[in-house]
């Protein structure tokens, strides 16, 4: 479980996150949603320690992450996997070496065992037989899937995804969403996904928190969204004509 307690973050006296508290449960896909510029990515980067917070606490299964020194943070980070918006694959090495990288760095397994694990992870994301391809030879969806394979290589306890389906067609986006959801349940990990894709919210959102201008405006499950009377959430959810029509058809 990941707990956030009263997180505040500002950049050069410009507040980006204000007093955010939330709990993200194990084995569930937790979503952070909000408009572009609402602070989703900053919040996610604060949680994983890429940004230092101004005040508050971040707890990973009771361990206060933000007060740890660099060495202690490194140890916790070995329990994390992250899927970046642009996949962030190492572009000078092939898919196999990308997925094997954390295994090479943090395990003493034989090459055979490591290769088995790589093949298992690639198979899990339906990327078998792509071992020798370079990231530049992959499509957007394949890059994301390879990045997920790398993220799960070390059996992480926490998985973070920053806009996993941005720039993907709807079908591939659903594939990626389903994959994240399945992996979360299969390996019983705590997953936090940043997104502004409503399709993802309705597909995989076990728990959803909504950010508006750096403030947590709403929290609930995907089933609560349509019945919410939160003005900002409704503006966000029903921004598209398709969503408006769905609401109209539901309200009769």
């Amino acid at each position, binding site marked *: 479980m990941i707990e956030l307690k009263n997180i505040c973050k500002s950049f050069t006296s410009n507040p980006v996150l204000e007093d955010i508290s939330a709990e993200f449960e194990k084995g569930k896909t937790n979503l952070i949603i909000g408009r572009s510029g609402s602070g989703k990515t900053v919040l996610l980067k604060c949680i*994983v*320690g*890429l940004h230092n917070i101004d005040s508050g606490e971040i707890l990973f299964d009771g361990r206060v992450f933000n007060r740890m020194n660099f060495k202690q943070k490194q140890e*916790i*980070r070995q329990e*994390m996997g992250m899927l*970046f918006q642009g996949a*962030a694959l190492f572009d000078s090495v092939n898919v196999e070496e990308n997925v094997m990288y954390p295994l*090479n760095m943090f395990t003493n397994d034989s090459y055979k065992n490591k290769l088995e694990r790589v093949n298992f992870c690639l198979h899990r994301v339906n990327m078998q037989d792509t071992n020798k391809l370079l990231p530049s030879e992959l499509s957007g969806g394949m890059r994301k899937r390879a990045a997920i394979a790398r993220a799960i290589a070390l059996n992480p306890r926490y998985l973070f995804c920053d806009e996993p389906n941005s720039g993907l067609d709807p079908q591939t986006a659903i594939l990626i969403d389903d994959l994240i959801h399945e992996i979360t349940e299969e390996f019983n990990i705590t997953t936090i996904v940043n997104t502004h894709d409503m399709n993802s919210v309705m597909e995989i959102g076990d728990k959803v928190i909504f950010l508006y201008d750096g403030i947590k405006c709403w929290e609930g499950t995907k089933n609560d969204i349509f019945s919410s009377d939160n003005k900002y959430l409704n503006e966000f959810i029903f921004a598209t004509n398709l969503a408006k029509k769905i609401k109209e058809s539901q309200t009769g």
Partner: protein
Amino acid sequence: MSKVFAWPEKSRMYYKQIMKELEYLGISSIGIVVIISVFVGAVIAIQAANNIENPMLPRYLVGVGVRDGLLLEFSPTMVALILAGKVGSSISSEIGTMRVTEQIDALEIMGVNSASYLILPKIIASIFFFPFLCILSLICGMLGGYIMSHLTPICTPQDYIYGIQYVFYPHYFTYALKKMIVFAFIISSVSSYHGYFVEGGSVEVGKSSTRAVVYSSIVILLFNLILTQLILL
């Protein structure tokens, strides 16, 4: 700086990285160092001969001039400036691109000390290999002068060979190597710094690459003066 010189998570991975950098930063620079050194050695030989107008001065001074010109200034300092352009911009743009494409963040999330993993092997590879490039430059420069002694009437090849062996001070050689080791550290660390802390996109990567070359060159020139005063005076 303390993050860069932290103890590696896994020595074998760092060793592999150092080998990669030796090839990327060192071996790939051999060509340009050889070409420039041969031509500069040849030019110094012609200029030295041109300045020896007095018939009382022996022609073997052409060899002495080429040797000392290369040893004292060209092979350590000018080659370092050339490497600041070639290697410095490459280090800065490589690390800068990794920064803007979130590859460095990905390393950090995995629990890797990205500063150490990316920068330390470059510093070690540069410090280890650049002195060899200095020696290579020296050899190629003297070869360039020797070729000119064959092709032109500046002096006889025998005079030239006699000149490059004449009154040789071994500490000039160690002075050149010491300078090159310091310059190697400056090039790799200054360039890595500019790449590592880049913010923005491809335009900023380009700017950081330019800054890396400019600052490396200025620091090299400054340390050239300081080291010359400290070692030679």
